[in-house]
């Protein structure tokens, strides 16, 4: 997403698309701060404010910020909710906070004076916010929600609808800043990745998640680049991370790390959501048909299905019929979500590793291999630093800060939980939603076709996922069905015991 070129013209039909997330400063930055620095300052600043607010007001901060909720037949109920504070009020509060914090960043990183005018930015931002609200309401319909079609998909489609029919109006373009919203959201996401969770979750989950995931990621990447011959390594990496780690959030983080183009990120997310919806129903059916033990099945589902919510839902479907259906479902959900949580923690490590690998290996401007001419260690170091997406450091810092606070004691853990559940998680949801509306507003359908690489991207996803299923299944049998089986039975709650 370019910052300023978008200010002057609508998406060109066949113009090369810029990265979904730029790594360097906007050329016209008026503050001397790049968007990465702004994302770190805004993300860590907001996290600090959230912790402070939770410390002062306690659990009163919960429900003050929210996103539209679930509804079945009356869309208005998505904006009303069931809590003491109507969801439209807490949604509006979230958008006001984001608007107040984002406006200076948008003005100071603008490329030309017209696009940075406060009134234009405000008008553009609130129009994008309206589309984001519509995306949340669409995703909140209970049938849509049940099959895991998350708000990012609807946000993207609404943006695409506008840009590909009437075109994105010029007055909106100063606020169409998807990369800023994504980076800011990712820094906030860092606070949700608690390293301490790993210590609680232990060896069996690590064996399944941490051994299989990197293998699948690397094999899928090599397969896509060398066997299928997909020309964009960034696209292959985003699809591989999306499919092997944890779906949408991994795709967003990896796309930022390897500077994938916006249509590549959009395509990877669309593929993930479609296949997740199918696998969420088909995988538990197949495992029940094959009479796979629910503990092994839970680990298999947790290590394979992309999205965390879909993993839990698929685990719940393992119950089937019969008197002990609920207990079987409980066991499967617990194992599946635990394995997935361990896998989710990998998101930071993967994004960090990919950003370092990309900075040393590829010329990020056009995804070609970087020059192989020998350079000094200092020159290499400074080159890596120049190309490195620095907001990743904000992600890591937020994760370390939250993890450290959790270890301080129950007070620290409560504080982190209140600030995440009450404030940052909802604001992060809004930021990702705004980002995907912006990506849609800057994308032309025609640019999505080359990203499909004549169907090779779909083949890549299917082959990678097939390999993932086989390898995860083997590890799940080995670890959860044999090595640690008795220990896991003892760990499961008595009520869900066998």
């Amino acid at each position, binding site marked *: 997403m370019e910052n300023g070129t978008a200010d002057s013209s609508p998406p060109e039909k066949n113009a090369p698309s810029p990265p979904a997330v730029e790594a360097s400063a906007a050329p016209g930055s008026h503050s001397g701060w790049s968007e990465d620095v702004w994302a770190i300052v805004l993300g860590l600043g907001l996290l600090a404010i959230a912790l402070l607010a939770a410390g002062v007001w306690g659990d009163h901060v919960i429900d003050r910020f929210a996103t539209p909720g679930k509804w*079945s*037949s009356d*869309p208005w109920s998505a904006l009303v909710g069931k809590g003491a504070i109507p969801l439209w009020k807490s949604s509006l509060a979230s958008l006001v906070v984001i608007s107040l914090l984002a406006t200076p960043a948008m003005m100071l990183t603008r490329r030309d004076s017209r696009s940075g005018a406060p009134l234009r930015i405000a008008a553009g931002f609130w129009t994008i916010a309206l589309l984001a609200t519509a995306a949340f*309401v*669409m*995703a909140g*319909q*209970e*049938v*849509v*929600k*049940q*099959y*895991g*079609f*998350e*708000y*990012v998909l609807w946000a993207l489609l609404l943006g695409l*609808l506008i840009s590909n*029919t*009437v075109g994105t109006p010029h007055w909106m373009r100063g606020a169409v800043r998807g990369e800023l919203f994504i980076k800011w959201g990712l820094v906030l*996401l860092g606070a*949700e990745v608690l390293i301490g969770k790993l*210590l*609680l*979750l*232990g*060896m*069996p*989950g690590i064996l399944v998640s941490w051994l299989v995931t990197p293998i699948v990621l690397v094999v899928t990447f090599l397969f896509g680049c060398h066997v299928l011959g997909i020309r964009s390594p960034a696209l292959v990496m985003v699809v591989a991370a999306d499919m092997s780690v*944890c*779906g*949408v*959030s991994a795709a967003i983080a990896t796309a930022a790390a390897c500077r994938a183009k916006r249509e590549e990120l959009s395509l990877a997310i669309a593929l993930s959501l479609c296949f997740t919806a199918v696998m*969420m129903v088909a995988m538990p059916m197949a495992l029940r048909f094959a009479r796979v033990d629910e503990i092994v099945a839970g680990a298999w589902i947790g290590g394979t299905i992309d*999205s*965390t*919510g*879909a993993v*839990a*839902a698929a685990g*719940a*479907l393992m*119950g089937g019929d019969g008197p002990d259906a609920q207990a079987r*479902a409980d066991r499967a*959900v*617990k194992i599946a*979500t*635990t394995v*997935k*949580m361990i896998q*989710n923690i990998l998101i930071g490590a993967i994004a960090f590793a990919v950003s370092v690998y990309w900075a040393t290996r590829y010329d990020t401007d056009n995804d070609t291999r970087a020059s192989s001419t020998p350079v000094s260690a200092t020159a290499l170091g400074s080159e890596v630093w120049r190309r490195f997406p620095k907001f990743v450091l904000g992600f890591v810092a937020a994760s370390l800060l939250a993890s450290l606070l959790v270890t301080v004691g129950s007070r620290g853990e409560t504080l982190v939980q209140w600030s*995440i559940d009450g404030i940052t*998680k909802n604001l992060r*949801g809004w930021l*990702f939603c705004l980002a995907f509306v912006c990506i849609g507003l800057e994308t032309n359908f025609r640019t999505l076709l080359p990203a499909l690489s004549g169907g090779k991207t779909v083949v890549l996803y299917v082959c990678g996922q097939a390999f993932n299923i086989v390898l995860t299944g083997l590890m799940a049998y080995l670890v959860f069905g044999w090595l*640690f089986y008795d*220990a*896991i039975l003892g*760990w499961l709650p008595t009520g869900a015991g066998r």
Partner: protein
Amino acid sequence: MTRFWVGCRPGRDDDCRANHRGIGVLVAIVLLIVSVWGWVLPIVGTTPTIRQSIETTERMGINPAAIFYTDVYATTPTTEPFWNPH
């Protein structure tokens, strides 16, 4: 845009025609979205199979559309060590 309400000059203004077509497509898709979300999906949600699966996930505190693990309330109680060799 200014000529939208008075029509395009015959055979002379392709941009104007494209603009009209764009507005038409936008309006048609918005109407489609409104009718699917306002009418079709609520009906689909009342079918017994879908209803049962929605109620099951609701009862277990699962949000199938959750993007990240902190969104899944079913995972929250997992605080005791999963594997403790001692």
